């Protein structure tokens, strides 16, 4: 008998029970070896296997296991779909029609740098939204260190310097970009928190590698000293911090090469309130293989976390296929497996 599942790119695939089990075992071994963490137990493998054998189109978590749902870049998603509603209307739709537990206001150019010159226009929108909405309302943006190098920013581009062997110059550029990014993140986050935001979401952290992770941790440390009660959410960009600078340390820990459970430890030290591990999809492997990897990486976080863990479970991460229109069967299986097996605090 064959069961229908999908590849990491979303295309349908039929597999036997033995093939699914082998992919789950291979996936969890891959993650465990890479991050030096515990693989899934036999019971967890069997549970995930049952999820993929279930013929139902959608599945759900066991009653009582429901979690908090937060949405990064929430208001921009309506614009991306050409829905003609304002940001405040978008928030009301999330609040009153989509069952969101947390809300997030965002600028369509979702990075701290482009928000800086328009923050005075974002503040009154937030202030108005806070008057008429009820769930916690965050302001979110991406650290996006890529915007600080030429031609988009002031610093020499390390992607040009590194192929020329100019390693010291590339590192110096990253260090300069860190200073610019920290200043922008602290400025925008301060303005939005002082306008009343319940918290700030640093989304897709580490997308440009270790220098971006360092900049974000530093900005958060500054903000938490300034506003001890500020809630800080940090969603990561990937399962592995790329060593683009490769010689940056935070709290004596080298940032290059950190896997999610180690990212979490530093996030906690910096003052993060909610941590979001992001586990990348490998598009030419099956979803059972991919989801087993995600479960393994995320479980290593939830086992040691002192703060809530909201795994990133959107397109291309957390066992969700890399497809613009995500299939419900694949999405709900990721939701269920990550919540039921890893005891997540939110998605």
């Amino acid at each position, binding site marked *: 008998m064959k069961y229908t599942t999908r590849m990491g790119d979303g295309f349908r695939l039929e597999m036997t029970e033995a093939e699914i089990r082998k992919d789950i075992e291979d996936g969890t071994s891959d993650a465990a070896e890479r991050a030096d963490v515990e693989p899934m137990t036999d019971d967890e493998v069997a549970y995930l296997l049952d999820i993929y054998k279930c013929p139902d189109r959608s599945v759900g978590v066991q009653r009582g296991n429901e979690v908090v749902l937060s949405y990064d870049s929430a208001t921009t998603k309506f614009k991306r779909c050409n829905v003609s509603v304002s940001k405040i209307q978008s928030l009301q739709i999330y609040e009153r029609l989509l069952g*969101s537990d947390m809300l997030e206001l965002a600028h369509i150019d979702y990075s701290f740098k482009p928000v800086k010159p328009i923050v005075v226009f974002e503040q009154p929108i937030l202030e108005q939204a806070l008057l008429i909405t009820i769930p916690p309302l965050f302001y979110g943006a991406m650290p996006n260190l890529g915007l600080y190098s030429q031609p988009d920013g002031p610093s020499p581009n390390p992607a040009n310097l590194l192929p020329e062997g100019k390693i010291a110059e590339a590192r110096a550029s990253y260090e300069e970009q860190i200073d610019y990014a920290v200043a922008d993140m602290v400025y925008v986050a301060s303005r939005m928190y002082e306008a009343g935001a319940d918290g700030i979401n640093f989304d897709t952290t580490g997308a440009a590698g270790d220098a971006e992770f360092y900049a974000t941790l530093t900005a958060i440390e500054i903000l938490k000293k300034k506003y001890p009660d500020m809630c800080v959410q940090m969603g990561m960009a990937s399962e592995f911090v790329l060593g683009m600078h490769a010689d940056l340390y935070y709290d004596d820990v080298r940032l290059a090469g950190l896997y999610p459970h180690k990212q979490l430890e530093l996030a906690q030290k910096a003052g993060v309130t909610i941590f979001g591990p992001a586990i990348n999809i490998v598009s030419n492997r099956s979803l059972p293989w991919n989801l087993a990897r995600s479960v393994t990486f995320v479980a290593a976080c939830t086992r040691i976390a002192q703060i809530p863990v909201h795994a990133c479970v959107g397109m291309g991460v957390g066992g969700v296929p890399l497809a613009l229109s995500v299939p419900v069967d694949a999405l709900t299986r990721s939701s269920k497996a990550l919540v039921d097996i890893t005891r997540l605090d939110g*998605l």
Partner: protein
Amino acid sequence: MAVAHGVAAGIGGMRAAGDLVARMQVSQGMRIKQAKEHVASKLGISVLDIADPVVMSEVRDDLDLGRVNAVPGAAKGIDAKFRIAEVLDIEINCLNIFKKRTGLKS
């Protein structure tokens, strides 16, 4: 994706007590089990009731914590947040700013 995640794993936001559990994560950094227990204890309900929209509609109505339905006279926004802060015994950033701007003492 929001709909599928909500159906598969969500507490349900204001349909149930999702926003209240989220408040405890945001304001106190509580993990999900502790946050649900805190909310259940403050509302006088069981942890299983947290995600039950029928039970929670009644509880939210009784305590005026805001509902998804348009109920005349019911708390709609910041008024509901004042009640939520009191019931859950937490501080909410925008309420403190609101009080400062309006000169409210408590």
